């Protein structure tokens, strides 16, 4: 597709910056910035939880999403659900039956792509906490702007005028789709193209994960 034009172009992802073990009291924690969007995630667990929410098959994942200020809302529950369902596939929960793993996300700055930043940050925090995982995952957001171009990791002003915004999460093993959610309207071909692009971009995030782990794993 798009062969007629045959224009290759460099697509830039936003600069990523992260610090693991940002908080001393949590079992694992990370602060991650993707461009101007920043989030902190702490992971605690596996730990003892009250018997009503225990599961004998796997550990119970509790996700708490905290906004910066203001009151709770249905939209927060939705974000929690996205993150919980995604983590659930990545964590080997059956290794820790009758326990709970608590993931707390605190948003700090939102300049577009907050939820994908939270997802990536959660993945790093899980890595940091040492919870056994089946795979890691990477979230990439893209948008279809007014002129119809697909833009990876759009900045905030572009999001407001975009026709559609899509976020995809890929796993590291099969490189297949774990989670997706979209806003706005778009054609099927756009969807497929966006899927392919984000797929390619997810490699960058995976290599970022690798770099950070290899940086400290050398020392340990």
């Amino acid at each position, binding site marked *: 597709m798009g062969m007629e034009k045959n224009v*290759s172009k460099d697509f830039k992802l936003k600069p990523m*910056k992260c*610090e693991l073990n940002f908080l001393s009291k949590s079992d694992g924690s990370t602060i991650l910035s993707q461009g101007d969007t920043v989030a902190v995630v702490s992971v605690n667990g596996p730990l003892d939880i009250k018997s009503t929410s225990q599961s004998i098959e796997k550990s119970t994942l509790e996700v708490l999403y905290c906004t910066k200020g203001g009151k709770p809302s249905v939209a927060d529950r939705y974000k929690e659900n996205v993150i919980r369902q995604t983590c659930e596939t990545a964590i080997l929960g059956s290794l820790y039956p009758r326990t709970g793993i608590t993931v707390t996300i605190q948003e700090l700055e939102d300049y577009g792509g907050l939820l994908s930043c939270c997802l990536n940050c959660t993945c790093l925090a899980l890595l940091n906490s040492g919870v056994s995982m089946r795979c890691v995952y990477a979230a990439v957001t893209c948008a279809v702007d007014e002129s119809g*171009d697909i833009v990876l990791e759009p900045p905030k002003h572009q999001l407001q005028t975009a*026709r559609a915004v899509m976020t995809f999460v890929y796993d590291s093993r099969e490189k297949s789709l774990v989670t997706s959610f979209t806003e706005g309207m778009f054609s099927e*071909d756009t969807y497929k193209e966006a899927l392919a*692009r984000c797929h390619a971009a997810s490699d960058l995030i995976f290599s*970022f994960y690798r770099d950070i782990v290899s940086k400290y794993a050398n020392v340990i």
Partner: protein
Amino acid sequence: MKDVFLSNCEKSFLQRIVSEGHRLDGRNYNESRRLNISFGSEYGSCIVSLGETKVLAQVSCEVTQPKQIRPNEGILYINVEISPMAAPQFEANRQTDLTVYLNRLLEKCYKDSKCIDLESLCIVVEEKVWSLRVDVKILNHGGNLIECSSIATLTSLAHFKRPDVTRSGDSVIIHTIAEKDPIPTVLYHYPVCMTFAIFNNDVLLSDPSFIEESVCTSSTEEGINTGGGLLVVGMNQYKELCLLDLNGAALYDSNIVHKAIVSAADRSKEIVDLVKKIIISDDTMRQKRSKINFADIITSEHMLSLTQKELTIQLKNYNVDDMTSKTERMQVEDDVKSEPSKYDVVPSLPQTAEIVSKKGGSQWIEISSDSEEDQ
């Protein structure tokens, strides 16, 4: 909240080294941990870290109706939240005694001390006033939450700027930051809460860490109180006392309170000066249009941190509009290919339609009786 238990060894060790004039982290008795304040991109949001303790504060504002008894005053809300992020023993969405205690202390310190000019928050008497809301989130509980969150509250309030408004007749126009410069909040004075841990009724530790806090308020294994406690002193930069709060054991000697106040007076001046200085420097930074963002707190020297600036990927340019002609063509092909539907749509009862699978698969139980409706 689950209780955190300390072993007797830990307790007695800590008590012994304190009585011998040391502290666990090597500080002097009245030495505080490093205070660090960083701002977010918005006005009124900051992260304050005191050693390992980290607190996020965010001020937001909205226009509301004033309270009936105070029609010409704005409203200030303070809301403290301790999520499991602070420490594993806290549960999600549940208020603990600590949350309530902290909330009340901050309210006493900032609402009841009348440090904010609430009247300046009034827009239209009896109709519209600004309501400020301070959300304090504990990110990491490394002891001395009170002092840390109080500095965070103070800094965010002093840093906050609300949008400008103009009144024209009945309507009130709220200007965005781009249209008109926002207005800072007026603070009459800058109160700060400081915590002191009292050991054996005579030792005063400023800025206690988490373990020091828990040891000084807990009793020994025999149930004998060790004469320890936590003393909170709220004081502004003019060395005026705004708040005193003691929990733990009763004091034998009132001199210790006096000692604490004297030491708090110096410290409060120090803190307030720092807060003022840092806000001014932040302001000049902003005026030079340099970006300020929480991303700045991520250090790059740390072993466990990584920065990658150039993340590029080669992809073909793709435009939805270029594709439409082809898409349509494809869809036409699709339509030709599409096989006849497997389902029948039948209008059965009045107002009703059904999809029935043609081969009449699963069982279907009739439910509607709406036929008798609406003669």
